[in-house]
């Protein structure tokens, strides 16, 4: 690799050819502020339109200032990152951006987590020139079940557009209009619900301002908790415990399972359960379905649809309902753990507690925004009453805890309630890419071969590469497995299957980077992919520390089948735990 030598603020730096000034400066320990630039290195996600012009620097011999995020270093380059000219330019440009941004920080849901706000604090903006009579660009507002769009607050960083198109290949958003009125929006500024949006929420996860925010369900939860007639129970998704601590200043990757349970109890939830329990249940159903299809296939049945696709991720479900309408019979019919939990809670558990369905409120805490949409799907309601009433995100939970004045860090560790709080390591790893399929393999292998696994950890299924493939030996039968996270990678995999390029038996897909740990409901990563990496490691630590690590060994699952469901894929299970898919062809 050719090396380039340059000086930045009088520091000599040597970098590889092709390195940008921004990265070279970082290497030299110089921090250049950025706004539109986003680089999640572990995940191959980059947004670099060079549009905000905040990261400009002075390069000797160049007429105008250079955007450091997208200017490559050249041999002998002399760069100055904080001359008066640079500082004046940055400040003036930031003032301009603020002059077209509503001054509503006090009530903005992104306040305190907003990159724009941070930057104006850092740069000491205290007044905005020319704001008198200045026109502010305003747009149609939209509130979908999963997220709110208030593009008056958009600064045209284009991160959401990049994510929606280049990373997720959903194509719900595009830059529209021109000049001062340009903004990112769905076609015709229509509602997201009328667009091919999957509600994966990754646009929200990268938005540097309050333009894209999660739909806020906290008030509804508070109202339910305050209602003495209601029994309110909560389930927490696997990925939440690996990230919630960040909201309270803890190191990324800190596991806060026990504190979270304690906090939820303090908040007044009648029972604190674990979605991991439902994940184990999912494995029983999905694993059985996989084995069924596999057995038929191996027996030569030509009608059987393979590969089986996981169906836990609601954004992924939306994605294939929009884009792969010809393959609707391929994914597993198993409902997601959130919905299995809801269905069991409002039948089995409600009976057990002798609570009427309508008096039982099921709340879920999810790393995800699509879950908000999922629990509103009609097929998951009984006479209009949803199996899961409200889904709040990790960040919303953090807000509830803060609003209730709970000193989270000082909370003791507490355990989940039973029966739906017991889970296995297999349930935990549902939170990362590769986890669902690994959990399924752990169970399917043992059920299929009748043998005990020698080694529970399937390292070959783990990792953060966008598409991974592995072959697992099922006692002489090679089972081909494909894994993709982020919908763009899923598309590649699916297209490969459609064209016959790939030959898989089972495929796991998660819509978000790294899986649920990188979900849009999680604490914001602000462009630091190390955070996602840390959560990833935490999930596997939690798994390794669990006494039981295979779903079919979860005693409460065994009990659930004995007492209520009968056996996996039974008629009752089918009714409560399985679903079907709809064609939602939209461009």
């Amino acid at each position, binding site marked *: 690799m050719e090396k380039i030598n340059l000086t930045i603020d009088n520091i000599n730096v040597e970098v590889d050819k092709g390195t940008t000034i921004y990265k070279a400066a970082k290497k030299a320990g110089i921090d250049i502020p950025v706004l539109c630039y986003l680089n999640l290195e572990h995940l191959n996600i980059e947004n670099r339109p060079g549009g905000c012009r905040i990261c400009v620097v002075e390069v000797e011999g160049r007429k105008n200032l250079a955007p450091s995020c997208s200017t490559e270093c050249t041999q002998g380059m002399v760069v100055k990152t904080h001359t008066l000219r640079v500082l004046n330019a940055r400040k003036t440009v930031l003032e301009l951006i603020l002059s077209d941004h509503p001054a509503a920080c006090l009530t903005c849901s992104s306040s305190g987590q907003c990159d724009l706000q941070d930057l104006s604090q850092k740069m000491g903006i205290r007044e905005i020139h020319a704001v008198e009579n200045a026109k502010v660009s305003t747009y149609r507002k939209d509130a979908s079940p999963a997220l709110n769009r208030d593009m008056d607050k958009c600064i045209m960083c284009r991160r959401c557009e990049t994510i929606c198109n280049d990373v997720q290949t959903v194509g*719900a958003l595009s830059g529209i*209009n*021109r000049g001062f009125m340009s903004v990112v929006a769905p076609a015709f500024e229509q509602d997201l619900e009328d667009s091919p949006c999957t509600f994966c929420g990754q646009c929200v996860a990268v938005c540097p301002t309050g333009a894209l925010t999660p739909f806020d369900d906290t008030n509804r939860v508070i109202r339910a908790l305050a209602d003495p007639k209601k029994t309110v129970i909560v389930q927490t998704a696997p990925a939440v415990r690996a990230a919630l601590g960040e909201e309270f200043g803890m190191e990324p990757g800190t596991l806060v399972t026990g504190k979270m349970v304690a906090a939820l109890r303090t908040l007044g939830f009648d029972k604190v359960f674990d979605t991991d329990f439902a994940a184990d249940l999912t494995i029983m159903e999905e694993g059985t379905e996989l084995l069924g299809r596999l057995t038929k296939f191996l027996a030569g049945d030509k009608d059987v649809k393979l590969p089986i696709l996981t169906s836990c991720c609601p954004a992924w479900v939306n994605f294939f309902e929009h884009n792969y309408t010809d393959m609707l019979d391929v994914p597993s019919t198993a409902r997601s753990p959130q919905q299995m939990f809801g269905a069991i809670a409002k039948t089995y558990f409600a009976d057990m507690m002798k609570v009427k369905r309508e008096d039982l409120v099921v709340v879920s805490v999810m790393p995800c925004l699509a879950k908000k949409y999922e629990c509103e799907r009609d097929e998951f309601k009984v006479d209009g009453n949803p199996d899961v009433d409200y889904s709040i995100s990790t960040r919303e939970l953090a807000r509830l805890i803060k609003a209730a004045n709970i000193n989270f860090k000082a909370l003791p560790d507490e355990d989940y309630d039973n029966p739906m709080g017991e889970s296995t390591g297999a349930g935990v790893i549902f939170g990362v890419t590769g986890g669902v399929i690994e959990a399924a393999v752990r169970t399917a292998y043992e059920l299929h071969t009748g043998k005990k696994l020698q080694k529970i950890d399937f390292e070959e299924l783990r990792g953060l590469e966008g598409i991974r493939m592995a072959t697992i030996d099922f006692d002489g039968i090679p089972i081909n497995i494909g894994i993709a996270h982020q919908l763009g990678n899923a598309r590649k995999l699916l297209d490969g299957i459609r064209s016959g390029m790939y030959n898989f038996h089972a495929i796991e897909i998660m819509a978000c980077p790294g899986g649920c740990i990188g979900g849009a409901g999680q604490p914001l990563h602000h462009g630091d992919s190390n955070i996602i990496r840390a959560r990833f490691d935490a999930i596997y630590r939690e798994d390794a520390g669990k006494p039981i690590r295979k779903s079919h060994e979860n005693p409460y699952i065994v009990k659930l089948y004995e007492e209520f469901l009968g056996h996996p894929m039974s008629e009752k299970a089918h009714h409560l735990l399985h679903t079907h898919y709809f064609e939602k062809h939209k*461009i």
Partner: protein
Amino acid sequence: MSTTFKIQESHIKTIHDICDSFNNDPGELINVLHKCQGEFGYLPEDVQREIASKMKISVAKVYGVVSFYSFFTMTPKGRHAISVCMGTACYVRGAEKVVDEFKSQLSIKVGGVTEDGKFSLDCLRCVGACGLAPVVLIGEKVYGRVEPHQVKDILAEYND
């Protein structure tokens, strides 16, 4: 923004033929939009949806392109489309006053259509007839050296 345009089978065929003639190549989107606008007079939502679906581009992207370029329009023009050149040469020779006169005569804004759908009023960039500044185009017809007091007579030419 939504219009009364209802897409019909024959329209779909026209759109598909146009897309096919450009091999459904997304790189030809702008040429396709030109042809479709030539066909329908404007680019209503349904036409954009059909183009997007045929060419396998997201409709958001199609709309992104349509809303970027000033040549494309989503509102139908009047039967007589009035365009006043606002190039520099016309501007310095008083095009603004001519526009104002059209606006007050027709009681519409720039970009608007009269209620009876007879006239629409737009400004455009240089048509290159700077020698005739200020220039007004009505349909294909060019009026040169237009003065505000002539506007009334010009409009009268279009009495049906």
